[in-house]
């Protein structure tokens, strides 16, 4: 179901809650987000975002960092990050 784009505050400190873990597994062909009775394949971009969701960095810091690292316009990164984070938050896989 498509939800209208959510507003996430720039000062939010996203974190993976207990019971949600990012893990690398060679036999499964890369990175997986492990959650209660589910496992999702995580692509390279999602992995870069999720690794930064430690509960310490703010959304603004994460976006700045990724924009610099991948030399991509900040607005585009911001849109991608917010889309991923709000979709995970709706599934209870991320806390904002």
């Amino acid at each position, binding site marked *: 179901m498509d939800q209208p784009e959510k507003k996430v505050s720039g000062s939010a400190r996203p974190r993976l809650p*207990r*019971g949600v*873990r990012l893990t690398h597994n060679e036999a*499964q062909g890369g990175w997986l987000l492990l959650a*209660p*009775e589910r*496992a999702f394949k995580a692509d390279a971009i999602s992995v870069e975002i999720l690794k930064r969701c430690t509960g310490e960095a703010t959304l603004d810091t994460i976006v700045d960092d990724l924009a610099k690292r991948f030399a991509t316009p900040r607005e585009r990164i911001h849109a991608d990050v917010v889309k991923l984070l709000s979709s995970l938050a709706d599934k*209870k896989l991320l806390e904002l």
Partner: protein
Amino acid sequence: MAAPDLLPAPLGLLAELTHRCPLGCPYCSNPLALDKRDDELDAATWTRVFCQAAALGVVQVHLSGGEPAARRDLPEVVKAARDAGLYSNLITSAVGLTPQTLATLSEAGLDHVQISIQDSDEASADHIAGYKGAWARKRAVAGEVVRLGLPLTINMVVHRANIVRIESMVELAVSLGAKRVEIAHVQYYGWALKNRGALMPTREQVDNAARQVEVLRARYHGRIVIDAVVPDYYARFPKPCVGGWGHRSVNVTPAGKVLPCHAAEVIPGLEFWNVRQHSLADIWRASPAFIAFRGTDWMREPCRSCDRRDQDFGGCRCQAFLIAGDARAADPVCHLSPHHALVLQAAEARAEVAYSYRSL
């Protein structure tokens, strides 16, 4: 047989630690012939199995039963899963699980807890479980799980006696602090098959339940995730059972037998290997039971030429055997199966009879 480099890697391991359980739920998925305590694998063997599973690609282990808390060495088993790098999920009735044990499990690195609740109505729930006081006990343990900061799923098995209370069952899960609730319609194997006439809902009830789940999903969006396991006797297409035989998941029984799915022992003629004699990797790759229905080569018509064959894998092999009498047949739940009428007849064969409770 698939070449080794094409062999899929299993994602999940269902570890049935014991068949002992204080409850007697008439839909229990355990086989009618239950493993005895003396035959159970010890913690050291489970530790070895977890290490082998992780090396094979398994990332999640579901600690189940019976009631896993019936084992005193459960904390040791949980720690072994964590040490092997596996995500551990405790599937429990909560009866027999003390706050002290729960705290120990949490410290040992348990990742998630799933508690079954039989109904939102206390008297009905205790009647279904065949255990007075179970409902109250479960609510207390659920509270303890949340207090410890462990993520909680509530599993509600749905059938004729409680299908009208889905809304209040979801409300109960929300009030207990669960982040996820499973509305799981009974699947008819083992004890559930024995009690099929007493458990089967009507088509009208099933249709109402499906509509209600959609309404509840919208109402609780972002607050609780509602996952539904569909009632396949009323479906047009079969479920993609265990994500394909020998493809994604592996099941180890209390006595160490390794099965492609928890019901597989009902199929006659399958040869299962045991972790006491073989490594999990050898069993996954080469045991006759895993090879039997892996991939699509075993299929007959109408599955063989069906464009859904890689989507639902012909459905469930156990159900094909149990209803059509042939494990290679299409799952008779499929409307394309020549045996589909048998499923419709079975769904109509409802009876107001007492449950035959699960017992050793």
